[in-house]
């Protein structure tokens, strides 16, 4: 956090400054929507390693970070990209081959964990998952947990309701707070100071943003203060939570950015195809990510007609009639 009035910087600076090897990070978005993909590709380019990644259903970005070997440990609720991968492919390979330790929670539990971090409390309660293996099975062993000061000693705690049945509730599950070193979100609009506005669903971006020690905001449009302050009800992120503001048009591509562009089915199917085979995946990384210097260059290689097709229709906010087969 930072109250300065101009936090604009390049994506490469923001990533090298706030994402260190071994950092605990989280990224915004959901499955194939508003993932901060430009930042994800920059993290891959800068060959960040040993990341501890927190995700609810943060989809495409999570799979690419895992595929590129950036992630050592994962706490997650859901790794899927809808029709494009009912289970994220590089995630699945990494787990099945024993390379990636995973701790499973539910989406609400992960949301509550970020919310607890944002609120500054060590845990929040829920009635979700009582009697399930989310409670009974731990991905990280108690020994591993005790050896690592950055993760809580327990995955979660089942507790009797101390208010004696109040709200017809006998028992709750307490889930521990997350405070990532850095969260990265992609939004539709931000100003130089950091005030940010998300259009469409915010998912859990706001909780993820406020839980973090540092926050990088990438945005489609960089606007004047006055514009956002003219309707503050529509802004979700106060500037003092923000450390870096990066202007990256198409920064969520190939995932969607409501009212700007849809997800890119062509690219997501290409990715799927590459991800299914280790050699093809290495070729994808080399050709598509490492050989471009930044997101702009990456995008410049995509056929304009392909990008034109995913442009959002002004009435609905998505690409009406887009061929998604």
């Amino acid at each position, binding site marked *: 956090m930072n109250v300065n009035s101009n936090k604009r910087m390049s994506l490469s600076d923001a990533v090298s400054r706030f994402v260190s090897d071994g950092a605990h990070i989280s990224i915004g978005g*959901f499955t194939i929507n508003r993932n901060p993909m430009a930042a994800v590709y920059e993290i891959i380019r800068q060959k960040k390693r040993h990341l501890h990644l927190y995700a609810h259903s943060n989809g495409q970005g999570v799979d690419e970070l895992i595929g590129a070997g950036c992630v050592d440990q994962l706490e997650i609720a859901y790794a*899927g990209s809808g029709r494009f991968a009912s289970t994220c492919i590089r*995630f699945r390979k990494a787990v099945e081959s024993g390379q990636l330790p995973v701790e499973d929670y539910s*989406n609400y539990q992960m949301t509550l964990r970020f919310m607890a971090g944002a609120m500054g409390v060590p845990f929040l309660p829920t*009635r979700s998952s009582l009697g399930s293996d989310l409670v009974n099975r731990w991905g990280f062993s108690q020994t591993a947990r005790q050896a690592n000061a950055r993760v809580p000693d327990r995955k979660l705690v089942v507790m009797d309701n101390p208010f004696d049945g109040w709200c017809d509730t006998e028992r709750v599950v307490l889930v521990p707070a997350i405070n990532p070193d850095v969260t990265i979100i992609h939004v539709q609009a931000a100003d130089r100071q950091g005030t940010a506005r998300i259009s469409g669903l915010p998912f859990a971006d*706001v*909780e993820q943003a406020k839980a973090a020690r540092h926050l990088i905001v990438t945005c489609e449009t960089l606007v004047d203060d006055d514009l956002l302050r003219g309707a503050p009800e529509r802004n979700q992120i106060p500037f003092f939570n923000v450390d870096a503001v990066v202007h990256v048009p198409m920064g969520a591509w190939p995932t969607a950015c*409501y009212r700007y562009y849809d997800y890119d089915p062509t690219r997501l199917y290409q990715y799927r195809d590459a991800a299914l085979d280790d050699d093809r995946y290495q070729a994808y990384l080399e050709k598509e990510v490492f050989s471009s210097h930044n997101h702009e260059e990456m995008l410049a290689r995509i056929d304009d007609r392909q990008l034109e097709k995913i442009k959002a229709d002004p009435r609905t906010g998505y690409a009406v009639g887009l061929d998604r087969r």
Partner: protein
Amino acid sequence: MSTEIEYTSREMMAVAAAREIRDGDIVFCGTGISMLAAMAAKHISAPNSVIFFETGAIDSQLEEVPLAVGDPRVMFATSVNGGLADAFATMQNRFTGRQVVGIMGAAQIDIYGNLNSTVIGDYHHPTVRFSGSGGACDVASFVSRTIIFMQHAKRKFVPKLDYLTSPGWLDGPDGRKKAGLPDGGPSCVITNMAIMGFDPETKRMVLNGCFQGVRKEDILDNMGFAVDTSQATQIKPPSAEELSILRDKCDPQRLILG
């Protein structure tokens, strides 16, 4: 299967689920066929049902079928575009949660309707890793009833789950109460062959009805555990109207129907 109009088992499943939705239900939708069922129900028998998604979209006006619950199509012309925290609180809430029906799928199901969508094999060294719970465990924990989609196969209807992701009736009639879960639980399982229910006393799975042309033996042959089939009826095939709504209004591109 055939009636006057040809239809697929996927279409039968979507229609069967749509019929389970009552007017006034708040319908929690996952990705895929559950969305079609909810969309179809609104057009057929439950015009005042409300479609909502764990991503936070409430009463989405689905002009095109979404390919994921995070699809921008769920955000259009909703009543409120909230966040995940709001969506799950709606289900855990003591008043609204009672009116929510959840539609979900899984990789494995047991006789008490408990679901696995996490791993096949050992949790720490899985043979197959799936996406994980997502919101499934939350929905199964909170809402008044759930409708489950499954493919009918021995490896899916198993005596013991490799991992219990989403609680059904747990280990029987008192299972949820003992665990501390709210009232609620699975009401039916819709497969490519049949509709399974749960005995009101024992909470063990039973056969409610077979789809057209399916015999009870076929069903039992495709399950890893035995169920009572004595009360099973024949399921009415989709009507021409149901099919036309499903095909023309809900998924004209056949993105989900295939």
